[in-house]
């Protein structure tokens, strides 16, 4: 059974604003019964652009009903400009959070809101934009990109939880991963900013002290930093490391990996006898 917050349960058992606003001037219908959840949102917006009434109808599980109920409560009294800023995370937050597998319920709410706003503005119902990536649930690359960007998603599982994409036959998992990689690489510099020699040596010393030495000392060994020439880090082994046959491997697999990860990706560790 899902771990729902008391607020989700309360909104599910006593949903607010069920039904259809009679003279609605902002209407949206998203999702489908075949996909497991569908939401119809109707709003009454006054001449000042303020939402005076909001109602919903939902086919779906407890969290879909609670998310729709929460959305209508959040919308009442807001202007359309304010409403436009509501994100799926806001809906989840209003409910004290949703299980991560159920985040797609909050995304459905946000989609309905966007469609209602477009409907109010008299924009024609949007044709499907982008290319369908997940055939099972009809999710496009643009929707996936957006969910990844707005919610800082990192894995295919995250994307499935938020958009349902990849939750069926799983044949699109590779493509979803590529989208995640692409979005997450956005805005990141290709290489980190260069370090001055002084900075580099200081960081290497700190990393050895903090991340490397404690593990080596645990086995009675140690290393000493002799010099740094460009990207070459010259180290001498001490204690049990000095007589250990595996010390070369330790230097390459452990010390070098750590230094590359935490200081500079091109560092090369070399052992010197001193």
């Amino acid at each position, binding site marked *: 059974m899902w771990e729902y917050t008391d607020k989700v349960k309360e909104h599910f*058992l006593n949903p607010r604003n069920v039904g259809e606003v009679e003279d609605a001037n902002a209407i949206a219908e998203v999702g489908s019964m075949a996909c*497991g959840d569908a939401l119809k949102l109707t709003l009454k917006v006054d001449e000042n652009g303020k939402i005076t009434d909001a109602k919903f109808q939902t*086919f*779906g599980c407890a969290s879909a009903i609670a998310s729709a109920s929460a959305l209508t409560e959040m919308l009442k009294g807001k202007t359309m400009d304010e409403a436009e800023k509501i994100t799926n995370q806001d809906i989840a937050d209003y409910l004290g959070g949703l299980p991560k597998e159920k985040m797609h319920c909050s995304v459905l709410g946000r989609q309905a809101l966007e469609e209602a706003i477009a409907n109010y503005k008299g924009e024609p119902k949007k044709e499907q934009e982008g290319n369908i990536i997940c055939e099972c649930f009809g999710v496009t690359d643009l929707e996936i990109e957006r969910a990844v960007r707005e919610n800082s998603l990192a894995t295919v599982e995250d994307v499935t939880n938020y958009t349902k994409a990849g939750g069926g036959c799983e044949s699109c998992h590779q493509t979803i991963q590529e989208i995640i990689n692409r979005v997450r690489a956005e805005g990141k510099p290709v290489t980190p900013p260069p370090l001055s020699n002084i900075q580099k040596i200081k960081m290497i010393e700190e990393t050895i002290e903090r991340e490397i030495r404690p593990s080596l000392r645990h086995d009675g060994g140690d290393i000493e930093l002799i010099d740094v020439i460009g990207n070459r880090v010259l180290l001498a082994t001490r204690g049990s490391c000095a007589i250990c046959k595996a010390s070369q491997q330790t230097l390459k697999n452990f010390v070098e990996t750590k230094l590359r990860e935490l200081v500079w990706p091109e560092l090369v560790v070399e052992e010197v006898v001193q």
Partner: protein
Amino acid sequence: MKTIYLDNNATTRVAPEVIEASLPYFHDLYGNPSSAHFFGGQVSRKMKVAREQIAALLGATPEEIIFTSCGTESDNTAIMSALVTEGGKRHIVTSRVEHPAIKSLCEHLSNQGYFVTEIPVDGEGNLDMERYEQSLAPDTAIVSLMWANNETGVLFPLEKAAEMAKERGILFHTDAVQAVGKIPIDMKKNTVDMLSLSGHKLHAPKGVGVLYVRKGTKFSPFLIGGHQEKGRRGGTENTAGIIALGKASELALLNMELENTRVKQLRDKLENEICSRIPKSRINGNRLNRLPNTTNISFEFVEGEAILLMMDEFGICASSGSACTSGSLQPSHVLRAMGVPFTMAHGSIRFSLSIYNTEKEIDFVIEKLPSIIEKLRNMCPYWKPEEQVCVGH
């Protein structure tokens, strides 16, 4: 709030007599049955009795009973054994509606280079016997078909299917976890080679199962270790669990008639009343060829998890084949294999009864459920109350 437990295909209450029989094997008689001393030996003797009780339930001999930890272990053992003993044969025949204990294992094996044929079922969950016959090949190492489906209760023509495998010299295993204790099973009257059962589905505790292996069947152990179970399953025995399962088997034999009369009547009342009171509801599965305790009903225009949670408010426990409860985003593979439309599969509820259910409980569910469905349907954007037709057949 009183719990009304109608989820007995998930697990069952441990019978009070079973608890009583097994308790001494926790506190006083905790010896290891493999020990040489009398203290352990007396546990071994009691285990022998349990083995006989289980054999009696199945119409088997005690030597054909191997104790395991659960139904899944029994299923895995049967398949993996066949792949070893059948000299390099690489084909497995199973059905589309198996429990994950077989289904996921077969998917795993097909990724390892084995060939798996999943026999389809029709709209009522009946096995396609023609396709089954065609699938049996010289390279087939084993057939594994469930006796009774856990979601719909539909029974496969097991004896016939086993015979067809036998004629071709192919090993035949059945996952009978849901069938044992609910319908009479007599291994003397069929040609099934291996059969899995699980204790907690028949009022014994969780953590004990059985793999029946017919005398003379080639067998290769799955858990390799000590000499327990004559070297067929290593690992110290779950003595209290085994003794509990023995007692539960004895009770199951006694209660078999009750299961097929009173429990069946309560199930029939439940589904008939629900179907007549709630429009746009339908029974999933072959109504004439089913376990006596199970009914699977779909309610169009509502989603199963929402129904379950609203029933939970009244203490009513059941399950659903909806996507939201299946742990994935797609509804139950069983209902999909039967071609139940997604809109119906999302709104499916399984009620599974036991001898402990009373008519009062069933009446309570019949009273509460219609208003739950109505409340949810009134929230649904597609529900048109004027189009009310009962499609239960």
